[in-house]
């Protein structure tokens, strides 16, 4: 942080001003002139929160993707299929048992199992051959998509939100002041906040596991130099299987989350694969903090875009990707 300020004082100033402006936009009561210029504060705050919570979902999908890439250098293009698979499993569990929490656990375990099978049966056989792995995963994603279409049909499924999460809550943020002087507070869907909180907790837990535990140390060492790590006697194949299981399981959890506040249908696999590709390209391949930052940027761009420039909302995310590729091709937070 201090190094960044010392090296780029001008940029640091811009960042500080931007943060101050954002804080003012969030907490201050907007003067009427501003409301006329860019619309009501409620709309802005909602778009902002939606962007952040959507970023939470993107982070869940992309973190597994980037973790697998970081350690094994596999671009797993079947990651979107794992997302959709997890969602369908979550739906089946929540529909049959009525338990939302249980659907997360089962979805995590089953997709992790699929991940293990993928690693053992597919990736281990073609280790170090990036192009072959990529082609095989494209093929697999098509096969999986058709299998799921066969099993679940083209219908769209929605995982039932538990009753204690339905409806909005009031946040202590003033969106407007009524003529009587009474403040109007922001009302926001509770389920999105809970899901965002959960993704933050998962993110922090992953960061802690990677930076504070022995297994994390091994994984980080593997990211830096796989061959030396193997030479020191670590059973690298087991580490690979574990990481693949974790990455796949996270995609499965994300599927349940996505099925709860959006919906599941054929085609979602490609959408989330694309989203996680964009997120990791923006954030930096292989970096967990990069995935978090990338997910936040893409989520915000999508939501603010859909409110303020609806016609061009679709291209904004790709524009960001192009800019990053042009100016900092390794990604915003890549280490190398």
């Amino acid at each position, binding site marked *: 942080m201090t190094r960044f300020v010392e090296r780029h004082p001008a940029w640091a100033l811009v960042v500080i001003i931007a943060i101050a402006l954002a804080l003012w936009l969030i907490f201050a009561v907007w003067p009427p002139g501003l409301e006329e210029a860019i619309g009501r504060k409620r709309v802005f705050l909602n778009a902002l929160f939606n962007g952040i919570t959507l970023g939470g979902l993107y982070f869940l999908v992309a973190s597994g993707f980037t973790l697998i890439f970081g350690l094994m250098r596999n671009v797993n293009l079947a990651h979107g299929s794992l997302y959709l698979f997890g969602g369908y499993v979550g739906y089946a569990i929540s529909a049959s048992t009525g338990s939302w929490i249980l659907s997360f656990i089962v979805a995590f375990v089953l997709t992790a199992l699929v991940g293990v099978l993928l690693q053992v049966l597919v990736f281990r056989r073609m280790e170090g051959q990036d192009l072959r792995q990529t082609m095989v995963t494209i093929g697999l994603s098509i096969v999986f998509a058709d299998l799921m279409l066969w099993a679940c049909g083209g*219908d769209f499924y929605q995982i039932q939100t538990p009753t204690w999460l339905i409806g909005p809550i009031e946040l202590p943020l003033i969106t407007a002041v009524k003529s009587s002087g009474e403040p109007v507070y922001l009302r926001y869907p509770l389920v999105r906040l809970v899901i965002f909180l959960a993704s933050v907790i998962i993110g922090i837990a992953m960061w802690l596991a990677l930076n504070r535990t022995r297994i994390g140390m091994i994984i980080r060492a593997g990211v830096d130099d796989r061959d030396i790590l193997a030479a020191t006697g670590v059973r690298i194949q087991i580490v690979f299987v574990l990481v693949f299981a974790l990455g796949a399981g996270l995609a499965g959890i994300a599927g349940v989350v996505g099925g709860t506040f959006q919906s599941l249908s054929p*085609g979602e696999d490609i959408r989330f694969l694309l989203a996680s590709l964009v997120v990791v390209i923006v954030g930096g391949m292989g970096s967990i903090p990069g995935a978090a930052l990338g997910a936040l940027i893409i989520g915000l761009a999508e939501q603010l875009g859909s409110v303020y420039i609806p016609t061009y909302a679709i291209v904004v995310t790709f524009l960001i990707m192009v800019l990053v590729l042009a100016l900092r091709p390794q990604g915003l937070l890549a280490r190398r």
Partner: protein
Amino acid sequence: MLKSSLGLIALSSLLLSGTAFAQEKIKVGVTATLEGTYTVLGEDGIRGFQTALNVLGKKVGDKELEFVIASTDATPDSAVRAVRKLIEQDKVQILLSPLSGDEGIAVKNFAKTHPELTFINAASGAQETTYVDPAPNFFRYNMDGAQWQVGLGKYAYDTKGYRKIATVGEDYSFIYTQVFGLVLEFCGAGGQVTNRQWVPLGTKDFASVIAALPDDVDAIYLGLGGADAVNFLNQYQQAGGKAHLMGGSIMIDQTILSSKGNAKNALVGTLAASGQADTWEDPGWQKFVKDYQDAFPPNKRFPSPSLLATNYYGSTMALILALRQVNGDLSNNQAKYKEALAKIELDAPNGKIKLDANRQAIGTNFVTEVVDDGKGALFSKVVKVIPNVNQTLGYDPAVFAKIGLPSRTVPECKKY
């Protein structure tokens, strides 16, 4: 020399046998949106099509109809790709296509490159398809989106007392056409449409769109369909939305009213208009509902056919009945068949249908309200039936032409 002429003879005999074989069968290509946002709509469309085959049979004189089904995803290029495949690979002679608005415009334009074939619109409802530069071999037996909204604006203004509304709709031709019909009538009656929001087809996250809905309106009109509509309702419920709702023809439809989950309950009491009403008591309609229910087990269909099933049923009916009138004669670039199609009057389940000079349907429209049948199933209950709705919505054609084509901002909210 001898060799090559032998080859030629062999080839021509092969071709001859091919045509001889084709005369035994008449090949018909069908497209439906079996992928993407509108999958559920496409699936029910195909159910309507199959119901029609069950009722009418596949025989035309001594010939047998053979069908090839292709899938699209509601985008115009997917529809053209599917139609091209059906014509070039499967060699179909008649097309029953497509389902969705933008697809309709693209297929109509494509139809002009194959003037020898016949295109029967399956369910698409953009106004432009038959109103602007229509293709002489493209026939549409369902009404367009604007015709399907006739009666809604007046009913909302006069009976419900709504004065100000806002609209949310998917950003493509069919919904433009629906909003066109609504705005024309509602503003003509004296109402105001304060805000029109457009979202891309296939939007998943509606939270920001919901937040941007105005509070100071009497009702919000939803022009959404398929997965988009379900996503919207789910997130609308999570955000605690409580406004009065009005719905377009594919919003208040069994494809949405029968969706899983309880988000759809927000729709009870919603006012809508469409080319059908689930609870209409007309015997023809009731018979169609029964045929549809008998054709499929309850878990493989909706409680009652959707608008898409009805449209596919009507189009298939026209296809087969006109073909029987000419006894399967498709000679001379299908001239006789096209003539029969242009003249035919259908006794469709959702009322009588005949075609105008642009080969566009003139039919019956229904204003409905969503009711709960007491067992948790939702149906659209008819509140008003309007017969003989034509494409210019009863306006003088010259006045209608001045309004402009449906788009994000057309028509303006005023009396024309």
